[in-house]
C-alpha cells in the first residue's frame, strides 16, 4: 500500500515538473525580434528598479552623516555621496533624543512610538482579519434569511463610495469617548466587510461542506467545524491578508494623526517630528528614525514575500 502511494506521488511530482518545464519553455523561449524587445524591457525595468532602491541608499547613507556634513552636502548637491565618517551613533541618538510633544505637553520619544506602532498594527490586523473571517465564513457556508441582505451590504459598502463622512465619524468618536483612546482601533477595525471579506468569502465558498457533515456525525457542533476544520484550512489566505493589513497599519499615518494624536506611531510621529525640523536641523537623525521605522516592514516582507506573491497568484481576485 505504502509503495503504491509512493509510486503515485512520484508520478504526480513528475507530472508537476513536466508542467513547470513546459510553462517555462513556452513563457521564456522567444524569437530574435522578441529577444531584442525583451532586452530593451529588461534595461527599462532595471532602471526603474534602481530608482526604487535609491531611496534606501539615500536614507542609509545620509542617516550616517553628521548634521553639518549633511547640510554641506545638500547645498553642494552631494547627498548621494558616502559619509566622511560613519556615525552609527545617530541611531542611538534617534532612539534617545527624537521626540514630539503630545496634547498634554508630554514628550513622546521614539521607543514609545515604536511600541505604539506595534500594538496599533497588531490590533488592526487581528480585528480586521478576525471580523472578515467570521462574516465571510457565515455568508459562504450558511443559508439564512439575512444572508442576501448582508452580502448586498458587503458589496454595496465596497463599491458605492460615500464621501465626506469623516466629519460625522470624528464627531461620533468624540461623543462615544473613544477619540484619542487606545480602544478606538479595536472598534473601528472590527468591520466584517471589504476587500478581506471578498477574498475569504471566495475561499470558504470553495471548501467542501462534507468535512462539516463528518464532524456533525461524530457529535461535533458548528463551533468545532469552524475552529477545528475550516479555520486551519483558511490559514494561507488569512496569513496573506494579515501581512498586507499589518504593513498598511504600520505605515498608516493619517488615521493616527486624526484620531489618536496622543498615541503617535512611528509613521505619524515621524511626520510630526519632520514638521518641527527647520532647515539645518538634525536631518541625519531624522533619517535614522525613518530607517528604524522601515526595518520591521522590510523584514516581514522579505520573510513573507513568497507567501504574498503565491497566494495572490493562486487566488487572485474574482471579477
Amino acid at each position: 500500500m505504502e509503495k503504491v502511494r509512493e509510486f503515485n506521488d512520484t508520478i504526480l511530482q513528475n507530472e508537476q515538473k513536466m508542467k513547470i518545464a513546459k510553462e517555462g519553455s513556452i513563457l521564456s523561449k522567444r524569437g530574435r525580434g522578441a529577444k531584442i524587445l525583451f532586452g530593451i524591457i529588461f534595461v527599462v525595468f532595471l532602471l526603474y528598479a534602481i530608482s526604487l532602491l535609491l531611496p534606501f541608499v539615500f536614507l542609509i547613507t545620509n542617516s550616517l552623516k553628521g548634521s553639518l556634513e549633511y547640510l554641506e552636502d545638500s547645498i553642494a548637491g552631494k547627498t548621494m555621496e558616502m559619509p566622511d565618517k560613519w556615525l552609527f551613533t545617530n541611531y542611538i541618538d534617534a532612539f534617545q533624543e527624537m521626540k514630539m510633544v503630545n496634547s498634554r505637553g508630554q514628550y513622546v520619544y521614539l521607543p514609545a512610538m515604536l511600541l505604539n506602532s506595534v500594538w496599533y498594527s497588531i490590533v488592526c490586523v487581528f480585528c480586521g482579519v478576525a471580523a472578515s473571517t467570521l462574516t465571510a465564513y457565515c455568508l459562504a457556508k450558511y443559508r439564512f434569511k439575512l444572508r442576501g441582505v448582508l452580502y448586498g451590504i458587503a458589496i454595496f459598502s465596497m463599491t458605492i463610495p460615500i464621501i465626506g463622512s469623516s466629519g460625522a465619524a470624528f464627531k461620533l468618536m468624540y461623543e462615544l469617548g473613544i477619540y484619542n483612546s487606545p480602544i478606538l482601533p479595536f472598534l473601528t477595525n472590527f468591520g466584517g466587510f471589504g476587500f478581506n471579506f471578498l477574498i475569504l468569502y471566495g475561499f470558504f465558498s470553495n471548501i467542501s461542506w462534507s468535512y462539516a457533515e463528518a464532524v456533525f456525525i461524530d457529535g461535533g457542533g458548528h463551533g468545532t467545524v469552524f475552529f477545528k476544520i475550516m479555520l486551519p484550512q483558511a490559514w494561507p489566505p488569512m496569513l496573506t491578508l494579515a501581512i498586507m493589513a499589518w504593513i498598511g497599519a504600520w505605515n498608516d499615518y493619517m488615521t493616527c494623526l486624526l484620531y489618536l494624536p496622543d498615541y503617535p506611531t512611528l509613521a505619524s510621529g515621524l511626520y510630526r517630528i519632520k514638521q518641527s525640523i527647520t532647515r539645518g536641523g538634525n536631518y541625519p537623525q531624522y533619517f535614522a528614525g525613518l530607517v528604524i521605522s522601515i526595518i520591521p516592514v522590510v523584514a516581514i516582507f522579505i520573510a513573507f514575500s513568497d507567501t504574498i506573491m503565491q497566494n495572490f497568484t493562486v487566488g487572485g481576485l474574482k471579477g
Partner: protein
Amino acid sequence: MENDKTLLTAPAPKPKHTAKKRKETLFLICMLALPVLQWLVFWLYVNFSSIMLAFQDQRTGEFTFTNFAMFWDSLISPYGEIRIALKNTLIYFCTSLFVIMPIALVISYFLYKRVIFYKGFRVIFYLPAIISGVAMVAVFTNFIDPTGPLGTIVKLFGGEIPPEGLLGRPTTATWTIVAYCIWTGFCGNILLFSGAMARVPIDVLESAKLEGISPTRELLSIVFPLIWPTVSTQIIFVFTGLFTSSGPILLFTNGNNDTTTISFWIFSQVYGNGAVGGSGSYNLVSATGLCFTVVGVPIILFVRWLMEKIPAVEY
C-alpha cells in the same frame, strides 16, 4: 450545479424550529453580532449622521441649505478651494486610470513572460507598497530639491530647477506629486494582474506561439481578454475612487500651492490645525461629500453596467 451548492454550503434550514436549527441560529448570531453591530454604528449611523449634518447649521443646528450654498460658491469661484481640489482630484483619477493601470498591465505581462530577473523585479516593484509614505516622500522631496540629485542632473543638461523647488510653484507642484504617484503606483496593480495572468491556460499561449504571434498581439488579443474580469474589477475600483483620488498631499505640501484634492480638503477640514478635537467644521464637509456622492454613484453604476456588458472569456 445545485448538487455542487449542496456540497459546498450547509443545507437550507427546515421550516420547523428544531434544536439543530436553534443551535445553528445561535452560532450565526454569535459569529455575526459584532461585525454587524460595527457596521451599523460605524458605517450606517455615520453616513446617516453625515447626511443630517449636511442640512444643519454649524452653530445653531437648525435645518439649512447654507452648507450647499457655500459649497457651490467655492466650486464656481475661479479661486475657490473646492474648485482647485476637484480639478486636482480628476488629474489623479485620470492618472490612475489612463497611465498607472495600462503601464502596470504591460509590466505584469513582461514579468509573466519571464523577462530576465523577473522574480527579483516583482519583489522590488512591490517595495513602494511596503515602505511608509513618510519615508518615500522624504527621500523623493530631497531628490527633487534644487540642490539634490535631480537639480545636479538638470544642471548637467544646462537647465535649472527654480530656487523655490518644484513643490514651491503652483504650476509644477501638483504635477510633481503626480509624477511621484506614477513612480510608486504600480505595485498593487502588478500584484493583481500577475495573479490573473498566472491563471491563463498555457495551452492557449502554446498554440498562439506555434502560429508565430508577436508579444504585442499576444498581450492584446489573448492575455488581455483572458484577464478581463480582473481588469474590469480594477477599473470599477478606480471609478469608486473617482472623487477620492489623491496623492500624499499632507506629506508634500500640506495643500499649499494649489495642490489640494477633495479627500485632502476633507481631511484638513476635520483635522484642523492638528489640535485635539479637530476643527469642528463638519457640516460643510458633509454637504460637499454628499454632493460628490450624488454625482459619483450614477457614474459608478453606469461603469459597472458597462463592464458587465463586455463578455468575459470563460476558461
